[in-house]
C-alpha cells in the first residue's frame, strides 16, 4: 500500500507542477505575504520611532522606553498571521479545484478506480500532495518572518507554533476545497464551492445576534477563525489541533465518499 501511495503521490506531484497554476499561486502567495509582512514591519518601525523620539517623550511615557505591549509579536506577527490566513483562503481553492474535478472530467478516474486502487488510497494521495503544496506555500512565506524571529529574539519555537497553526489551518481549508472538487467534474463549480464553504465557515459572528446563546457557542466552536489565533501567539493548544485535524479528516472522508457514491450511481 505504501508503494501504491508513493506512486500515486508522484503522479499527483507531476500533474500539479506540470500546470502553471501551481507556480502562479506560489508567486501570488509569496508576494502578498512578503508585501504585507513588510507593511507591518514598517508601521512597527514607525511606531518605535514615535516612542523613541526624544521630542515626544515629554508627552507621557518614560523617556526612551517603549511600553511592553508595543512589541514585534503584537504589532507584526499577530496581524501578519491574520493576513496570511486570509490569503490562504484566497489562493487555496485555485489549487484544489483541479485535483478531483479534472480527473473526473478527463475520465482518468476510470483508469485509477479499475486498477485495484482503493478509493481511500486515491483520496489519501491527493490530499497528501495538496497538503505538501500548502507546506511549500508556507515555506515560501516563512523566510521573512524567520529572519525577523531570529533577529527579534522571539525564539524559533515561536515560529514553529505560528507555522503549525498556518499549516493546520491551510490543510483544513485545502481539505474542504478538495471535498468540493471531488463532488463535481467542473473546476469552476469546485472553485466557487471551495471559496464559499470556508468563507461561510470562517466566523459565525454574523449569526450570533440572531440565534440563541447556546447555539452561538456551538457555532463559535465550529468557526475556523476561533481556532486560529492562539498559534500566532506561540501557543499550540490541543483542542485547536484536534479541530483542524477533524476538518481535514472530514474533507478526506467526503472525497472517499464521493468516489464510492460515483460507483453506486
Amino acid at each position, binding site marked *: 500500500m505504501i508503494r501504491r501511495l508513493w506512486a500515486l503521490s508522484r503522479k499527483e506531484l507531476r500533474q500539479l507542477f*506540470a*500546470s*502553471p*497554476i*501551481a*507556480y*502562479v499561486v*506560489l*508567486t*501570488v502567495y*509569496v*508576494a502578498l*505575504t*512578503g508585501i504585507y*509582512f*513588510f507593511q507591518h514591519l*514598517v508601521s512597527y*518601525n514607525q511606531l518605535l520611532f514615535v516612542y523613541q523620539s526624544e521630542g515626544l517623550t*515629554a508627552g*507621557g*511615557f518614560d523617556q526612551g522606553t*517603549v511600553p*511592553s*505591549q508595543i512589541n514585534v509579536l503584537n504589532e507584526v506577527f*499577530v496581524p501578519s498571521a491574520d493576513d496570511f490566513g486570509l490569503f490562504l483562503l484566497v489562493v487555496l481553492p485555485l489549487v484544489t479545484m483541479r485535483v478531483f474535478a479534472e480527473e473526473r472530467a478527463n475520465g482518468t478516474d476510470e483508469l485509477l478506480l479499475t486498477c485495484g486502487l482503493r478509493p481511500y488510497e486515491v483520496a489519501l494521495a491527493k490530499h497528501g500532495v495538496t497538503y505538501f503544496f500548502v507546506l511549500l506555500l508556507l515555506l515560501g512565506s516563512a*523566510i*521573512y518572518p524567520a*529572519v525577523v524571529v531570529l533577529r*527579534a*529574539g522571539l525564539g524559533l519555537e*515561536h515560529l514553529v*507554533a505560528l507555522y503549525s497553526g498556518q499549516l493546520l489551518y491551510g490543510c483544513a481549508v485545502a481539505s474542504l476545497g478538495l471535498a468540493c472538487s471531488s463532488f463535481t467534474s467542473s473546476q469552476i*463549480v469546485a472553485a*466557487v*464551492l471551495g471559496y*464559499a464553504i470556508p*468563507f*461561510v465557515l470562517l466566523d459565525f*459572528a*454574523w*449569526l450570533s*445576534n*440572531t440565534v440563541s446563546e447556546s447555539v452561538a*457557542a*456551538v457555532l463559535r*466552536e*465550529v468557526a475556523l477563525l476561533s481556532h486560529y489565533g492562539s498559534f500566532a*501567539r*506561540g*501557543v499550540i*493548544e*490541543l*483542542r485547536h489541533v484536534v*479541530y483542524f485535524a*477533524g476538518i481535514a479528516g472530514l474533507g478526506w*472522508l467526503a472525497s472517499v*465518499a464521493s468516489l464510492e*457514491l460515483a460507483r*453506486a*450511481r
Partner: protein
Amino acid sequence: MSFLPAAGVVMILVAVGSYYATRSLHGFSAFSGANLLLGALLLAVGVVAQARRFRGFSGAESRRVVLRWSASLVGALALVVGVDVAARGWTSRIDLTLDHSYTLSEQTIALCQKLAQRGGEPIQLVFFEDALLAKDVRLLVAAYGDRCPAVETRDARRREPPQAARDLYTTTATTVIACRGDVCDPVGYPSERNITSAILRLSRERAVHVYFTVGHGEIDLASESDTGYAAVAATLRDQGMDPKALVSPAAPDVPEDADVLVIGAPERDFLPEELAVLERYLSRGGRLLVLADAGQHSNVYSELLPRWGFVLDDSVVLDQAASPLLKEATPVNLLVHLFAPYDPVTRNLSQRTMLLFPRARPVGLGRKPQPDDKLAQVAFASPRSWLSQNLARALAGGELQPPAGAQTGNIGVVATGRFPRGTGEPPAEARIVVIGDRDFAQNRLLEALYNRDLLLNAVRWLGNDEQAIALTDKGWTPNQDPLTLQQTVAYFYFLAFALPETLLLLGIYAWWRQRA
C-alpha cells in the same frame, strides 16, 4: 451547477461579505439578512430541483452504499462538531513563547495553592471577550482557570458585566476584572503580574491601611460640606480599606501597618524631621499619594517631590476645552480626557470617561533619581491647554485665551513613579502618585464624571503588595528593533519581487513545456 443553487450561493456570500464590510457600523443589516434568506431559499429550491432531476442509485447494493457513506459522513460531521464542542474545556497546550507568557509562574501557582488550602470565597476573574486586548489575554486568563483552583474564570461582555462589577466603569481597555464577593478590582494592563496582584489584594485578610497626614493644612476627611472630603474616607471604607489619620506628624516613623500614605494638598511646609521620616518610608518601599493644588506652597512640592523626579511648577493649568459642568465655565475647570491607556492609575479612563479637575497644577517629570526608576505622566490636559502664572487673574476669569506665543498642550496633571529600593531580591518597590488637583476629590465632585475611579485606581495601585509574591513582569522584552530599515527593504526586494519572479518564470516554463 444549475442557475438557482449558483445564485443562492452567490447571495449567501454577498450576505456574509456585506456583513463583514459593514460590521463596524452596525450589526447584521437588513440588506445582509434579505440576501441570506433569499439565498438560502434559492439554494434549497435549486438543490431539491437538482435532486429531482438526478437519476441513479438504483439497486439494493447501490442504496446500501449510499446509505453507508451518507451515514458515515453525517456521523463523522457530528463526531467532529461534538469533539470540538467537548474540547472547549481541554487545557493541554504547549507554550512555545520565549518567556512562557501563557504559563503561570511558580509564585502565582504557590499563591493559588495557598488560597485553595485556606478555602473561603473563590476569586472570580471576569474576562471581557469584547475588550481591545481580549485576544491577547484569553490564553493567560485560561491558564488561571486551569491551574488555579481558588480562581474561577467567567466570560462576560461589556454590556452585561456581573452584578458585583456593575458600579465599575468598563471601557474597551477593561479586559479583566477580579472579584471576590461584592468587591471587584479592575486589572489594568492584563499581565500575569497585575492579575496576580489583584488576586492577592482581594484575598488579603486585613484591610488596606491608608494613612492621611494632618497638620499642614491638608484636606479634611471629617468635613461633610460640599468642599469637604468626607466622601473620600467613605469611598475607601466601601472598598474594604481603612482610612486613618497620621496624628503625629513628628512621629519617629510611618506606622509599620501603613499600606498607603496620603499627603492631601498641604498648604504649609513639613518640618525637616518629617520630611526625613517620609524619605525613610519611601526608601524602604513606601507608597505615597500626593494631591497638589494650584497656588499652594509647601516643601513637599518644592523639596520632597523633586528629589523623586516630579516637577510641580507654581502655575495653574488653563484649558479652552474647559468644563461647563460647574457654574464658572472658565478655562480653570479642566476636563481631563487624555490618558495613558494601560497605566494602572488611569486604566478604564478614556476620552469618554473624563475627569473634572478644577484649578489643576501641572505635574511634570524631571531627572530620575536612579536609572532603574520609572516615571510617567498618565493624564493630560487637552492640546488647547496652557499654563498661567497668574492664578488670581485666571481664577477671576481674566485669561480666556492663551497669550500670544504661549506653548499649548502636553500638560501633564497626573504622574506616577516606581522606584526599586533596598537590597532585597527583587528589591522593594516604592511608588508615588502625584495628582495635580485636590478639588476633584471634594464631596461635591468625587462622584462627578469619573473622579472616583482615579482616586480608587491610585490607592489600589499604591496599596498592591506585589512584593509579597515577588513576581516580576515577564515583560517580554525582545529586541525591539528587529531589522534596520535597510535590511527590511533588502529582504522586501528579495521576497516580494525576486522570489515571486523566479516562481513565475518557473510557471511560464512549465506552461511552455506543456504546450510544446
